[in-house]
């Protein structure tokens, strides 16, 4: 049953992504990107990644869509038809995709418990986490306890990005519609 849901959701994702490449109305593209994020959040629940799913739903589908609509309000919502060639990018994309598909042929099958990725440190974390940290959720334990400093570093990245946005947009001292 879970495999069937997985199959359908991935089909939806592919349709939404292809629609996004075709549409010229950027407002519609921003809406579709919200739908794309929500669909991927549902897919993460099916694939047992519940923590990732609610982060994607809140941050990916929520905040990113709000930021995009805010930007579109300032920059206009219609994409102009450019005179550039579309054949060359299409060929590059098809060639890259074919190379990547060739690369997947050696990968272990989906859901295979014997895949190399499940053999090294993952069993150790699953076995020791409740004893060493007392937290039943292994993802939370790794994020906040074993790799706490990495998470601190991540907040530095977000702080820097926020600082960059404030510097670029000149918080509160900008004339609306003025040129730089």
């Amino acid at each position, binding site marked *: 049953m879970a495999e069937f849901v997985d199959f359908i959701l991935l089909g939806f994702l592919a349709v939404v992504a292809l629609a996004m490449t075709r549409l010229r109305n950027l407002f519609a593209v921003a809406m579709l*990107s919200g739908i794309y994020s929500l669909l991927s959040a549902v897919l993460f629940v099916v694939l047992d990644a519940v923590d990732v799913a609610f982060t994607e739903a809140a941050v990916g589908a929520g905040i990113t869509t709000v930021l995009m609509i805010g*930007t579109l309000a300032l920059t206009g919502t219609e994409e102009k038809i450019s005179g550039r060639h579309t054949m060359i990018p299409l060929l590059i994309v098809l060639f890259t995709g074919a190379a990547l598909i060739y690369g997947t042929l050696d990968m272990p099958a989906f859901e295979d418990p014997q895949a190399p990725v499940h053999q090294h440190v993952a069993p150790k974390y699953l076995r020791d986490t409740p004893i060493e940290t007392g937290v039943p959720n292994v993802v939370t334990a790794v994020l906040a306890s074993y790799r706490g400093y990495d998470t601190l570093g991540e907040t530095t990245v977000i702080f820097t990005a926020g600082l960059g*946005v404030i510097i*670029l947009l000149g918080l509160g001292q900008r004339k609306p519609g003025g040129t730089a």
Partner: protein
Amino acid sequence: MWAFGLYNYWIVIVLMMAGFYMVIAHGNLVKKIIGLNVFQTSVFILYISMGKVGGGTAPIISEGFTRYSNPLPHVLILTAIVVGVATAALGLALAVRIKEAYGTIEEDEIVKADTLS
């Protein structure tokens, strides 16, 4: 149980290439950033697909379950989602500034304005 084989990875590649196409074939800067987001989410799906174990459950330890999916890709992707939003916000802020400076966010027109001045 293994009926799907590599299906997940192939759809991931389709999504990845859709995002890649949006970045290289479109001249609109906001559309490029949306393309980057699509590409990024496809990488998330690739990692989470690799972490799934057949018959497993979410990696929250409780009695009555012995088989869990791999928690380590989940941790990596949690970090990646948040950093992805930070970079998208920075890119969109740059697009707004370019709109103010050039009056357009179409790449061709920006290049033309630069060569004229």
